[in-house]
């Protein structure tokens, strides 16, 4: 009986199934986005009594770029570095779990996800202790002369990149694991049968077949990392602030909504452009496997 509706409107079924998600997106993503766009073109000041007015103030955009070029650059530099490091660190881990994990696979995956049981803020605060001036890491790095005596790690760009890498590592490792796990082991045997050494077989067969995971992992890491502000705030200093810090302080501290909204749009546009270029370079089919 209940299914009668679906049978009578067979063509409408997909739309009915999509409707809840679409409504959700419209209400909680598109509408706020439109509001943000509207806000980014307002002008006025806090001194004038919170009276922002819509005036097609495109100057919000130009002054955002002019005033905060460094923060923008740093955002993409840190996010890019963290993405590359996360890829290099998690690829062998994901590879090992997928191919050698055996019956320990699920437990090992749990270890990767385990930090997520603690909130983002606490996890990042823990890194303050780890990287603190009298902490173990600094002592170790001083001992092996990687930093000079009295040098610091905390409140530097290195600490920010380390924090971002750590916080987004699971977003890299899990897609990598999934794509590696799906690779038919016989294909690697076939490559070795056809005179490819283990390394050649990896380069010619395993790695190309894991590319969907690499693409998914890098996007899932890079996109949120570029807009992150927690790591720079807790582990960095004003000289290592990212654009996320500026947006956060304008929105919540200075209540300069138009400038913050304009910066958000610029950030979004640059990320979108980078993703499109990336997808073009590696091939869009890799995104869907």
């Amino acid at each position, binding site marked *: 009986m209940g299914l009668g509706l679906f049978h009578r409107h067979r063509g409408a079924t997909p739309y009915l199934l999509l409707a809840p998600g679409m409504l959700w997106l419209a209400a909680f993503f598109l509408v706020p986005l439109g509001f943000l766009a509207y806000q980014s073109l307002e002008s006025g000041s806090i001194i004038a009594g919170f009276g922002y007015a819509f005036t097609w103030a495109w100057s919000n955009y130009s002054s955002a770029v002019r005033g905060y070029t460094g923060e923008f650059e740093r955002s993409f530099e840190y996010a890019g570095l963290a993405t590359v490091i996360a890829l290099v660190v998690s690829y062998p881990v994901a590879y090992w779990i997928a191919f050698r994990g055996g019956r320990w696979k699920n437990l090992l995956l749990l270890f990767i996800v385990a930090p997520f049981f603690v909130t983002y803020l606490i996890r990042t605060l823990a890194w303050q202790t780890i990287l603190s001036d009298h902490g173990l890491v600094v002592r170790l790095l001083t001992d092996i002369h990687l930093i000079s005596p009295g040098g610091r790690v905390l409140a530097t760009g290195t600490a920010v990149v380390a924090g971002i890498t750590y916080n987004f590592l699971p977003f890299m490792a899990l897609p990598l694991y999934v794509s590696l796990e799906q690779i*038919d082991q*016989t*294909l690697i*045997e*076939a*490559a*070795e*049968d*056809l*005179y*490819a*050494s*283990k390394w*050649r077989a990896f380069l*010619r*067969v395993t790695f*190309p*077949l894991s590319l969907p995971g690499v693409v998914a992992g890098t996007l899932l890491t890079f996109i949120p990392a570029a807009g992150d502000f927690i790591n720079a705030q807790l582990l960095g200093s004003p000289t290592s602030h990212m654009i996320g810090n500026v947006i956060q302080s304008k929105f919540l501290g200075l209540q300069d909504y138009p400038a913050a909204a304009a910066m958000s749009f610029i950030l979004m546009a640059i990320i979108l452009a980078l993703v499109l270029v990336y997808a073009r370079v590696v091939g869009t089919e890799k995104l869907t496997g």
Partner: protein
Amino acid sequence: MTVEAAVPPEAPAATEYDIRLIGLTKRFDDVVAVDGISLDIDRGKFFALLGPSGCGKTTTLRMIGGFEEPTEGRIELGGVDVAPLPPYKRDVNTVFQSYALFPHLTIFENVAFGLRRRGVKGGDLRRRVGESLELVGLAGLERRKPRQLSGGQQQRIALARALVNRPRVLLLDEPLGALDLKLRKEMQLELKRIQADVGITFVHVTHDQEEAMTMADGIVIMNGGRIEQLGTPSELYERPRTPFVAGFLGVSNLLEGTAVAGDRVKLADGTEVQCPHEVLGGRTGTVQIGVRPEKLRIGGDAGNSLSGTIAESAYIGVSTQYIVETPAGPVTVYVQNDRPGGQVATGERLTLSWSPESTFVVDALEGSS
């Protein structure tokens, strides 16, 4: 004879072998998959490893290919022990059961994979890939991806990808298992033709006795990690030496009896059966005599005879199958329907006869008296 019985390693080899397995054993934890098999395979032959699943045939093939390390024993390819070598250093190529074509590469690149690893380039590479695709009848598909091909086509590409390297030995791991019956029959003949064309030694693993009989020059029947018997298809069919072979390859009537002379066996009911001297092979005590259902005649006097009553009959077109109850046990008989109305009714008494030449002898089953 195309299959030589294995000789001890210290004895000089009489002919050129492509593959010699000597005391080859593979244990997985406490399971013995392959139990000390020794086997010589002549150059340029089509050879089948036949047996039920779990008999160790695939493990044997994977050890030759280098995908499993033997626990004990030697694998000689052209006289050189390759057991310690990785797959990519062996002059052997494999056609995998799942084909294992590289999904991200074109058909051309799939076939060229082995040649590229060996430094073949340019026009030479293109010519050899082209020839190989022609050999399997799929020229013109170079730019396709594997998933755009049918199962049968993928199977041929897997064959081309292996053969293009001109290996010393080609290993085939149940390559026709995933194809439908009609295509499988076609490919059996095709494989045989290609093997004759290229003259490379083929080692084909299968559990399908008909497939092995159709294609192979020599067959090894494996069971429980050991070799039961090796020989040409007709040797194995006409003269099986173990109850397992008699039962695995076609249908056999096995009747228990006692060897009373070098060429005679007395059945349970007192009937004496004659057989060639060599099939009894000096056995004494309890044995089983065997005869194939199509070698039995109703009536006549072909040398050996047995009386009984027809218990069941089934008409299947070209022949009629009878089950005849005899004092020595039930016997299956196939009678050609070479004239209309030749069937015999259930319950009728008759005498079966067969030639001593068609009689084989296997050991008695353990546990029976």
